[in-house]
């Protein structure tokens, strides 16, 4: 029973972030691809919406250092609080959500929902389990 429980808990922590890409791809590379995609940790392909890429290219002035998908990290210690650590991503997100620019950018759940509505395929949420 205990072994099964341990396996279940370990497995849950492993699969909770299976949607995170193995390697992020730059905006410029994605714009040149016929079908813009990345491979996720579970081996599946995640395809980006070309309309979102165009929107990001317009906002960031085709900044090639912008890596996609943008990672929004969940902080387990603070309930309902998320953070964007990358300064480029933080700047873009702040301009989309019309909030003050800062690095790291802390977001409330409502902000994340709004952001996910606009950048459905170009943003992803990382659930950090914290220190185990």
């Amino acid at each position: 029973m205990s072994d099964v429980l341990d396996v279940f808990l370990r497995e849950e922590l492993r699969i909770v972030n299976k949607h995170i890409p193995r390697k992020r791809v730059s905006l410029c590379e994605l714009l040149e691809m016929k079908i813009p995609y990345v491979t996720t940790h579970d081996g599946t392909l995640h395809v980006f919406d070309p309309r979102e890429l165009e929107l990001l290219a317009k906002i960031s002035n085709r900044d090639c250092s912008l890596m996609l998908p943008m990672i929004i990290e969940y902080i387990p210690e603070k309930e309902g609080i998320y953070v964007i650590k990358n300064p480029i991503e933080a700047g873009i997100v702040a301009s989309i959500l019309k909030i003050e620019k800062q690095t790291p950018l802390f977001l409330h759940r409502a902000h994340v929902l709004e952001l996910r509505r606009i950048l459905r395929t170009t943003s992803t949420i990382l659930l950090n389990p914290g220190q185990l």
Partner: protein
Amino acid sequence: MVLVLSISLKVRPTKMELIRLRRRLVTSIRVRRILSERLTILVNEFMAMLKEALVKRRVIQNQMLDVYRSAEVLLGIYGSNVSRYLMASTSKPEIYIATENIMGVRVKTIITKYPDVPHPVGLEEFSRISRDLVSTILDLARLEQSLHELGKEIAITKRKSNALEYIIIPRLRETIKYLQLKFDEREREEKSRFKRIKQILTRRTMYE
């Protein structure tokens, strides 16, 4: 000796087991917190998609009316040959079926790419609004399929989160409590035994 308890787990009453159980409890609490946050995100995404799907349905109705009106005008001008003209002059789009990954939920999506050629002369407006209509219909299809998949994932996550919250964590807490009580009792027994031994030894030395 193995303890079998109805509400707690089957464990050996050892210190090692107590440490292991405490660790497992910490992990379970973290996993439950992560799962409940995932559940919140999934439910919110589901609600947002539901709203978007309703809006898209209304948009489709309006767009269909526009397309019908435009088609009627074209039929009036060009006659029944307009469909053949349209077929001959419009280039075919490239359609790709791919997958999106929303919080670990795989959802099918359709990408349509129209070639960069000008619209047929006289049919610009009709071509433009029909393309918009097709793209909205595809968006709605993606949304409805996502809703279906997200619904399934929400049910699974909710079940896991509830199992942790109402069964596994209380059982672990109960077992830890039981083991602590067991160790306390053992300690008390040990103390009283030592006292008794001390008394016997003191008495023995007195007689000697």
